């Protein structure tokens, strides 16, 4: 029986990939719409600003310190419940954003003649690790609440940073001119630091 296992393993892996491709073939139009979405929101750039500190606020200790100090236990439980919902929502949004970056990347990269296999593999691995970690975090927050999860979030965000660096390197190869634009905008965004 053990001699069949490699074939069964390969077959199952193949079925999984085939299933993904077949499923995706039916949602190609939706994926494209997602790529074009920024056109509709081009004027609303400033809307991102109020949400910028959301993650910091959700996972920060200040609110919890205040609630745990001056309020009864019922309010504390209510706070925990609401903060859990918020934290999960924030994590899902982070995941969605990084996924959009990846989708945008693959849409452009497969037509690039300068595509680097090593960078692609690194990027894909970083992305999948990020997804695993992000999903684990959602589960962790759901089980234990956001206050206890603060330390783990830091790790997730380091993954996001690695992904960003890999993406920047890749974009520099795909389109150096546009990458310079991105880089310049980043320098403008250093006010917070």
């Amino acid at each position: 029986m053990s001699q069949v296992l490699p074939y069964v393993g390969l077959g199952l892996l193949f079925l999984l990939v085939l299933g993904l491709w077949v499923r995706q073939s039916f949602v190609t139009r939706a994926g494209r719409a997602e790529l074009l979405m920024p056109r509709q929101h081009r004027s609303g750039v400033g809307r991102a600003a109020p949400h910028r500190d959301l993650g910091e606020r959700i996972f920060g200790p200040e609110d919890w310190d205040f609630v745990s100090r001056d309020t009864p236990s019922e309010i504390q439980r209510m706070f925990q419940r609401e903060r859990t919902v918020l934290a999960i929502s924030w994590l899902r949004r982070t995941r969605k954003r990084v996924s959009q970056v990846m989708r945008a990347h693959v849409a452009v990269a497969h037509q690039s003649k300068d595509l680097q296999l090593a960078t692609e593999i690194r990027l894909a691995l970083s992305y999948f690790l990020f997804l695993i970690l992000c999903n684990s975090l959602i589960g962790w927050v759901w089980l234990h609440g956001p206050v206890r999860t603060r330390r783990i979030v830091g790790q997730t965000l380091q993954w996001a940073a690695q992904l960003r660096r890999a993406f920047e390197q890749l974009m520099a190869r795909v389109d150096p001119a546009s990458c310079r634009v991105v880089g310049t905008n980043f320098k403008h965004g250093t006010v917070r630091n």
Partner: protein
Amino acid sequence: MAASVFTQILWWIGNATEAFILARAVKGKFYGKYLAFYFYLSTVLFVELLRFATYTLQPSSHRVVYWYTEYVAATVGYAVILEIYRQVLKSSPGAARIARTFLLGVLAAVILKVMMNALSGPAWSPAATSAELERNLRTVQLLLLFGVVALLAYYRISTSRNLKGITFGYSFYVFACVMSLAFGSLPDYALRPGWRLVQPIAFLAALFIWGGTLWSYQPSPEPETTSEIERDYKILSEQTNRILSRARSYLKLGGEL
């Protein structure tokens, strides 16, 4: 008896469907568009009819003809896979580059395996049994198809309905072949008559998929022109810029935590 009748029904339906698909391609004048695939179908049909003719007219030589033609379809199947690679990745130079590396990797692995077998055994043979040889041929095909399907899924490469049908149908059939031959090599499974029907049924299913998707010629979607890519890319980089700016904030948060 019932199994034999069922096998014959499958056989006749299969041949009729193959002939029908070929006739559609000739009538619609797109036989040449997927030459390797239609050559494969023609070969399979020819081999089946040749075996039938031999069995009917000269039963004594049927066994010889059967074994000589056993691996023809599996070998010609490689041409179908190469055609899938060529047509699907025509407009994706980046993905084609990865595919070339992958193909070379598989080729190197196969050569290495053959050489290791040759060095380790005194009397080397490609496989102990004919079923094992076919299983090995089909497994390499499955690996190659895995590569192309993974690229299609990961890079979301858009393909025509025809190519989707060819790829999906052939992938399904090769998968069924590998599973059937792998389990068929086990003593418990090989003797079960139902197990021998897996391959013909899978091939018939593939034929129905091809019949549906190759009803008429549909060209592959034109790749976006450079200006469109650049335009989308600019929008894309704006979006990326916003997301990455936000990621910077998250990173600052990560540093504090």
